[in-house]
């Protein structure tokens, strides 16, 4: 892809909608027709919907650490956050648990963070009766910002910590939500920047080295952060630091992280007494 900065992406988006600038770039990059590119993205949207719809509350992961949580969240009455956010949280847990239990998901941008995008987009589509075409456009917006984060920083927990996985997913989702609500390209960049700022420094510390605890629950946090940052951007709240500089700062923070906090299962929560006990039990 040709975009190495959000600045360049915003420039391309002066003549045409940002999602379309990303689509045109994909057509040039892979040598495909517009229809072929759009149909491929539409396939991912359908797969995302299935990843939540196929949720089986009785399924458990091989380790026994994951499964059944989304059903509890869905059944809770009088959620503090209200019914819409309850649905967002439930969807994030559903897809996160699907992933942990070897179900089929869409890596967005990674498998561990696969719950964030569907968690914000599916309930919004349902609540506002939005068309599938608009939702596919949202995925282009997310992919556009995501690839710049991947190019300038990282989307791998082993390289940049959880900020690179849930953080990237949350930033991509925030930008996508701004598009869904008819915001400007500048507001998408602000939403992306603020979402990354909020999660900056988050370490990757999976218990027993598995993509389960705390990963599944962090999908919930990533989704709620995306909603809040999109709302802020749409209200005119801007990021004081330009998006590219935020991404570069996140990259620098990732590089400063010791290996024990980058998906090795050695530091953070993974180093707690209980986590070590769980890891020991699974190792037997």
């Amino acid at each position, binding site marked *: *892809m040709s975009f190495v900065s959000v600045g360049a992406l915003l420039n391309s988006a002066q003549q045409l909608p940002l999602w379309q600038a*990303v689509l045109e*770039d*994909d057509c040039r*990059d*892979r040598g495909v027709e517009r229809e072929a590119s759009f149909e*491929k*993205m539409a*396939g*991912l949207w359908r*797969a995302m919907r299935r990843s939540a719809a196929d949720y089986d509350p009785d399924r458990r*992961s*091989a*380790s026994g650490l994951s499964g059944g949580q989304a059903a509890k969240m869905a059944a809770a009455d009088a959620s503090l956050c209200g019914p819409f956010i309850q649905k967002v949280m439930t969807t994030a847990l559903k897809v996160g648990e*699907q*992933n*942990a*239990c*070897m*179900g*089929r*998901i*869409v*890596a*967005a*941008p*990674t*498998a*561990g963070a*696969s719950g964030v995008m569907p968690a914000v987009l599916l309930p919004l589509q349902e609540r506002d009766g939005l068309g599938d075409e608009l939702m596919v456009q949202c*995925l*282009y917006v*997310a*992919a*556009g910002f*995501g*690839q710049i984060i*991947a*190019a300038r920083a990282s*989307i*791998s927990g*082993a390289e940049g910590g959880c900020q690179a996985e849930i953080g990237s997913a949350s930033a*991509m989702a925030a930008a996508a939500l701004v598009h869904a609500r008819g915001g400007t390209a500048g507001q998408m960049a602000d939403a992306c920047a603020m979402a990354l700022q909020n999660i900056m420094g988050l370490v990757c510390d999976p218990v*027993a*080295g*598995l*993509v*389960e605890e705390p990963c599944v629950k962090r999908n919930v946090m990533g989704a709620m952060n995306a909603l809040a940052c999109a709302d802020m951007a749409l209200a005119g709240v801007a990021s004081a630091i330009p998006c590219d500089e935020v991404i570069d700062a996140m990259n620098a923070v990732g590089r400063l992280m010791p290996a024990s906090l980058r998906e090795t*299962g050695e530091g953070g929560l993974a180093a707690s007494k209980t986590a070590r006990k769980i890891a020991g039990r*699974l190792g037997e």
Partner: protein
Amino acid sequence: MNIFDIMGPVMVGPSSSHTAGAVRIGLTARRLLGSTPTAATILLHGSFAATGAGHGTDKAIVAGLLGMAPDDPDIPRALQLAAEAGMSVSISAGELRDAHPNTAQLAVTNRQGRTLEISASSLGGGRIRVNAIDGMEAAFSGEYPTLIIRNEDRPGILLEITRVLYEQAANIATVQLYRDRRGGLAVTVIECDDPLPEPLRRQIAALDGVVRCTYLDMEEG
């Protein structure tokens, strides 16, 4: 990297490196062997060995050997399906020298008695690299249509191979050459931009000095 490396792939969880990449390693071995193996010996190294059970790495590799893609919902049942298909599978953990943390070594045999040994690493995001074939060094991803040619190490042979590609207007993306010793056996790995038709592959296989020509196209059904 394109936008569908960011959004996607559709895959069975929980880990793009430990699950989706592992399926791809198994699938690559199957394609290189030419058919479903009847026996497979799998050695898991590093993080593949340490967290492989929780990530389903063992099931994922066997699923690939059975011909499943990384999004096949039957991946969790792969060991059972292999047993039903009459594939004998042996999986163990071990240490490989100077290997990437997510590396597997596979030795497979098919019904015709053909054997293949590969070492491959999962690099993240479901992408892989084959490090060795039958004990000879190599380095390719399977992301391109790839020719793996076992040939005699003598002057001019690369010219003869590439002439066939040139005459069929096939564009080469990368070329790698490895050999065990001067004048011995060599492995030539050629990655091309577009799929290579069968007659072209047969033409290369028939060249004097070419011992074996294997073709890998992961897009092929």
